[in-house]
């Protein structure tokens, strides 16, 4: 019986890999095919280096994995976990080539007990708020149609504010955003959010957006905080909660008048598109113009009718006056001095035309005229 030799003399050395090449190939295989994932295990030997990085081993009954947590992530996790702590970690497997060692690079670490406590607190707060009617549909206020003044409670260094500004600038550039900065995660976020929401009531705004960009579930806990929810409920203007998490609902989402899935969506919900408003203004303008047109026509008709009546009234009055004038003429005629003269009387007048009524008014030798029916007759007193 002959055994096949593992390496025959015909070995082609050009097909032999270096150690580095093998490590690189394995690295590519591992890192290319396993997406970030959560794993569960128990911590042993956690070492927090002065650089801020943490190294520990995660194990269960059957296996163990070396874990590494870079400073950026370790900072968010709080204190290094004690041996035996049961945790969930989010990360991805990598190959540490220099040591030929496979490691799990951890981004998030959550003690399972803390998670359980968080869940219990969430349920407690939710029940308390529900009992006080803070989720009632009857409480929900409609948003104003196109507000000019909007409060935004969020972190100033997150994407949330940038997204809100971008959407608002595009849709409703008439607006002014009043940004009240608050941390939105970590210790101290909840009291800052409460202070910011309380401050909203001192601003003259028409609506309030509170929120943050997407994050892991434990980054959103400030938005499940009871005091934050109650402060949100106490905001006097309609509120929009935009806590960017696709799957989880935060309690502020339930308390707010409107829940938006992301800060951008919140801005879209709050601000009408200017194009719509321009159309509306245009339409109102033409309706206004037509409304006057109708009025003007009515007015014209009315004036025409009034004119006709006035004319008729004047005609009638004139006829009456003419008739009266005729009658008066006859009466006057009867009294006319000419009629008296016709009957043979004469009227003496001096050179100035004054009527001479008494003897004393006649002077011997002075001429005067006598007015008779058909004219004047020169005369002289003797």
């Amino acid at each position: 019986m002959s055994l096949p030799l593992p390496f025959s003399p015909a070995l082609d050395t050009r097909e032999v890999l270096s150690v580095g090449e093998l490590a690189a190939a394995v690295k590519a295989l591992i890192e290319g095919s396993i997406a970030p994932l959560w794993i569960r295990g128990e911590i042993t030997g956690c070492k927090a280096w002065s650089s801020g990085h943490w190294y520990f081993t995660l194990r269960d009954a059957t296996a163990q994995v070396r874990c590494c947590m870079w400073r950026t992530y370790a900072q968010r996790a709080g204190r290094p976990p004690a041996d035996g702590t049961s945790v969930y970690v989010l990360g991805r497997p990598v190959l540490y080539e220099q040591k030929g060692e496979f490691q799990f690079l951890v981004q998030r670490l959550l003690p399972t007990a803390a998670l359980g406590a968080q869940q219990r607190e969430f349920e407690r707060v939710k029940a308390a708020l529900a009992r006080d009617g803070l989720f009632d549909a009857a409480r929900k206020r409609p948003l104003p149609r196109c507000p000019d003044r909007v409060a935004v409670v969020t972190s100033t260094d997150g994407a949330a504010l940038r997204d809100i500004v971008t959407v608002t600038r595009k849709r409703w550039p008439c607006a002014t955003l009043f940004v009240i900065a608050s941390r939105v995660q970590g210790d101290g976020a909840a009291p800052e959010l409460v202070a910011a929401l309380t401050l909203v009531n001192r601003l003259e705004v028409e609506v309030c957006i509170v929120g943050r960009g997407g994050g892991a579930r434990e980054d959103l806990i400030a938005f499940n905080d009871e005091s934050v929810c109650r402060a949100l409920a106490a905001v006097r203007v309609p509120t929009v909660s935009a806590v960017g998490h696709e799957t989880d609902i935060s309690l502020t989402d339930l308390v707010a008048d409107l829940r938006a899935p992301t800060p951008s969506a919140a801005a879209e919900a709050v601000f009408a598109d200017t194009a719509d408003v321009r159309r509306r203004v245009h339409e109102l303008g033409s309706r206004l113009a037509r409304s006057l047109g109708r009025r003007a026509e009515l007015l014209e008709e009315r004036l025409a009718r009034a004119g006709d009546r006035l004319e008729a009234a004047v005609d009638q009055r004139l006829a009456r006056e003419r008739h009266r004038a005729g009658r008066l003429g006859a009466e006057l005629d009867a009294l006319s001095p000419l009629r008296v003269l016709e009957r043979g009387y004469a009227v003496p007048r001096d050179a100035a035309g004054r009527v001479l009524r008494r003897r004393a008014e006649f002077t011997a030798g002075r001429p005067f005229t006598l007015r008779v029916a058909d004219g004047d007759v020169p005369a002289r007193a003797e």
Partner: protein
Amino acid sequence: MSGPPAGQPSLADELERLEAIVRALEANDLDLDAALALFEEGVGRLRSARERLAAAQLRVRAVLQDADGTLRDTDIDA
């Protein structure tokens, strides 16, 4: 202590009022003086709305609270 001044009525309020004016005029049951006064108001609001839309430039203000509780707001670059 007061917040930043609100200034003029919001554009939304202005449009609501304009809408009400147009409806009232269209209903045609006002006396002439009232109708003309409303029309004049409507023209003013329409002009103001158009100007505001034309001049629109988003403002982003940071609201800050001083140690004594006074509120200030300043432009921020966003």
